[in-house]
């Protein structure tokens, strides 16, 4: 999000708070979110793809909703509000497609949309598919699994360079563009990482029977809620819906809420646009790593990267939470002073908290339960090792399917396992430190410094896309070159 985007969102949120009739607030959020996902989508090299990707987000969301919806009285057709929602969304997509006929300066889409007739044909196809699903196969019990697998596969495809390049090549050929220029950058699907996590969460919760009933408008708004669309946090549907349902009762211009929201936005702006963007000038990257002449310099660049990443990400989160507060949706916190935590477990309980909660809930816990239930189950230590490694490698690969992110996941997975062993074996001794406050303070400070530097060293894998370069930087940082 640019400063202009954020400014417009803030003004829009204040106007919404001041003038939007209470019963229309939910609709306003959905309409704004649908428009925002087109508006925020960056321009892509493949013709019309920057229109089709947000459209595909809407279609996938609709299909997932069809899987998880719980119609009253097992009515196979869409209810009145869901039909209305579908109509509004189709109308919005067509209106956005009609931006094709507007001057570039006033378009809401990143580039010129495709022919409106093509868009209508695609929408008719989707509508037919929807009808088919709702009438014929609605009760098939495997839809949840199919949905999750399809999302994971789609995710892997767009995050794996050779696969994404292949897709780009096919799409380029389809629109008559040079296939030799195909690149993963062509498939810059804004927000899909977060959308996929939210959708998988709803499918899985539906499978286990804990997902609350959501109509299409609520579900769509939850999945693409615009303040959290590009960089999270990853809310839970059950929590989101509580705020969404309460929107009509919200006091529009509540001074406390507006002050809190505006405060968060200002703090986020400072973090992102003052601190993080300044640190970006000196933050570690591949070029700087190769140009750097000394170990000390490399450490400075790495520290800059560590703080830049924190201020950038937590700044965006503050802005998202702040706008959410203005709109009446209280998004979950994502950071809690992570660099001041005394151990790696505490770090991961305070860094990108909504993601770590997601993977704990949907990967770590099910995997550990599954291993524990095995007839010939491994030892507890082996189970912990497998679960920590799997969880952290998934988090790593979520950022991109590369060896560097794999190594980063391994780095943290092993550390979490190591800390678990350490904590188990030193629990009594640490408890005894309560009587020796100085030693306890020194232990805590030492833990904070050690954890911070461990995490910071781990960013080397994260910052440098090439594992060979990352390893050489690593060796240099440790003075082993």
């Amino acid at each position, binding site marked *: 999000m640019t400063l202009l985007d954020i400014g417009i969102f803030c003004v829009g949120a204040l106007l919404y708070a001041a003038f939007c009739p209470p019963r229309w607030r939910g609709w306003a959020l959905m309409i704004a979110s649908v428009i925002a996902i087109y508006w925020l989508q960056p321009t892509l090299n493949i013709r019309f793809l920057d229109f089709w990707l947000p459209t595909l987000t809407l279609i996938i969301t609709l299909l997932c909703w069809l899987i998880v919806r719980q119609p009253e009285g097992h009515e196979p057709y869409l209810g009145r509000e869901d039909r209305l929602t579908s109509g509004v969304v189709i109308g919005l997509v067509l209106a956005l497609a009609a931006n094709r006929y507007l001057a570039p300066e006033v378009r809401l889409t990143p580039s010129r949309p495709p022919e409106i007739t093509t868009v209508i044909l695609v929408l008719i196809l989707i509508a037919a598919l929807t009808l088919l699903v709702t009438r014929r196969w609605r009760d098939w019990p495997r839809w949840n699994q199919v949905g999750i697998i399809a999302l994971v596969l789609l995710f892997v495809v767009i995050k794996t360079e050779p696969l994404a390049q292949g897709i780009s090549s096919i799409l380029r050929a389809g629109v008559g563009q040079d296939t030799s220029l195909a690149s993963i950058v062509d498939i810059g699907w804004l927000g899909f990482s977060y959308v996929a996590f939210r959708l998988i969460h709803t499918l899985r919760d539906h499978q286990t029977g804990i997902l609350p009933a959501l109509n299409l408008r609520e579900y769509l708004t939850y999945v693409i809620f615009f303040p959290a669309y590009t960089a999270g946090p990853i809310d839970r549907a059950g929590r989101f819906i509580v705020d969404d349902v309460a929107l009509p009762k919200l006091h529009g*211009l509540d*001074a*406390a809420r*507006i*002050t*809190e929201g505006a*405060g*968060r936005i200002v703090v986020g702006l400072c973090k992102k646009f003052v601190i993080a963007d*300044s*640190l970006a*000038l*000196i933050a570690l990257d591949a*070029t*700087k790593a190769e*140009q*750097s*002449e*000394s170990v000390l*310099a*490399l450490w*400075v*660049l790495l520290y*800059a990267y560590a703080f830049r990443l924190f201020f950038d990400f937590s700044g965006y989160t503050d802005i998202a939470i702040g706008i959410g507060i203005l709109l009446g949706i209280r998004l979950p*916190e994502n950071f*809690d*002073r992570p660099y001041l935590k005394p151990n790696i477990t505490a770090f991961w309980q305070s860094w990108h908290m909504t993601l770590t909660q997601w993977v704990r809930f949907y990967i770590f816990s099910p995997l550990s339960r599954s291993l524990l239930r095995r007839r010939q189950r491994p030892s507890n230590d082996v189970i912990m090792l497998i679960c920590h490694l799997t969880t952290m490698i998934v988090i790593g690969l979520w950022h991109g399917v590369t060896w560097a992110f794999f190594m980063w996941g391994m780095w943290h997975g092993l550390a979490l396992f190591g800390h678990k062993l350490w904590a188990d074996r030193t629990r009594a001794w640490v408890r005894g430190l309560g009587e020796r406050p100085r030693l306890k303070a020194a232990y805590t400070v030492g833990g904070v410094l050690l954890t911070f530097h461990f995490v910071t060293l781990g960013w080397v894998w994260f910052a440098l896309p090439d594992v060979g370069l990352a390893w050489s930087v690593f060796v240099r940082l440790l003075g082993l070159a």
Partner: protein
Amino acid sequence: MSSWGWLTEGIAAYNWRFVARVVVKAGLLFVLLNVAHALLEPMPLIGRLTLHNHLLPGRARLPYGEHPAAYNLSVDSLEAMFATHEISQPKAADEFRVLLIGDSATWGVLLRPEDTLAGQINAMAYMLDDGRTVRAYNVGHPMLSLTKDLLLLDYAMQYTPDMIVWLMTLQSFERGRQLDAALVQRNVPQVHNLIVSYGLNLDAQDARLSEPDFFERTIIGQRRVLADWLRLQLYGVMWAATGIDQFYPEAYTPRANDFEADLSWLSYALPQSLTTNELAFDVIAAGLERAGDVPLLLINEPIFIADGENSELRYNFWYPRWAYDAYRVLYAAQAETYGWRYLDLWDAIASDEFTDSPVHLTSQGMRQLAEIIGTVITDF
């Protein structure tokens, strides 16, 4: 979240009176700070604050650059420019301080700091008879204007040079372009002072020399200058880490060797006789006067001499032969008339040692020039 307690807790409930008070106080503070900034004009003071020469090494040349990979940027505050430069360090007892003033050739486009004229002279470690070591400082700046050079010379005199070497080429002499340099236009009071003090044949009322108005002196008006000052410090970290202060492209377009049958030079379409009034020799005279007792060596810097198509009409892309020849004759005559120490090195370097412009040299070419100038400095 506990860290947000200061904002979200402690007061029973925010109300609009509280919000109004915050907005009014913040607004007043903002206005007050802007007015104070406009009245006090603290930018020269802020410009002198720098991490360079303290936490970070001083820069080997003045800040200049627009490419992010240069780890450098163009700033117009003389205070900030010189504060980051290694010349701001105290002068050593055995140092013979030489300032090298000039254009992009002296600054060293495409050359690493150690390959510039200053870097090469320092590498040769010339020693004077009295035991002092020649220490050259690169005070070149990549714009073609003698007035810009004079502005830098004037400011640099506070760093107690023992000698000044001023390298120049015809392109910097044209009177019409004297005020074109951004550095000149953003340091209007200093330029006005130079025009008045030395009676320069330049229009002090020229539209390019408009003083900033009140709004332009506020924090809002000076936000770019403030941001550049901050970025200059941050780029200093990269300078310290990499020793890089300009963007080095993998390939560049070499200076042209073939030309159209064109006899024009800047605003002169056809050959004509040039006079001392048309070229800014008065700016050189001002420089000599400003230098006072400090010896100042004037050098007509080497140019690329083409041998391709129409090279009988032009020396290079910049200069038709008629204009450049006339300039050299005029310059030599002026130097002789006024007793200037002048060295004409126009053809001192072979053509294949020029890179992307008629005056930019390769590292090898610069080494040859450094040998010539270094010898002159020690014999001075």
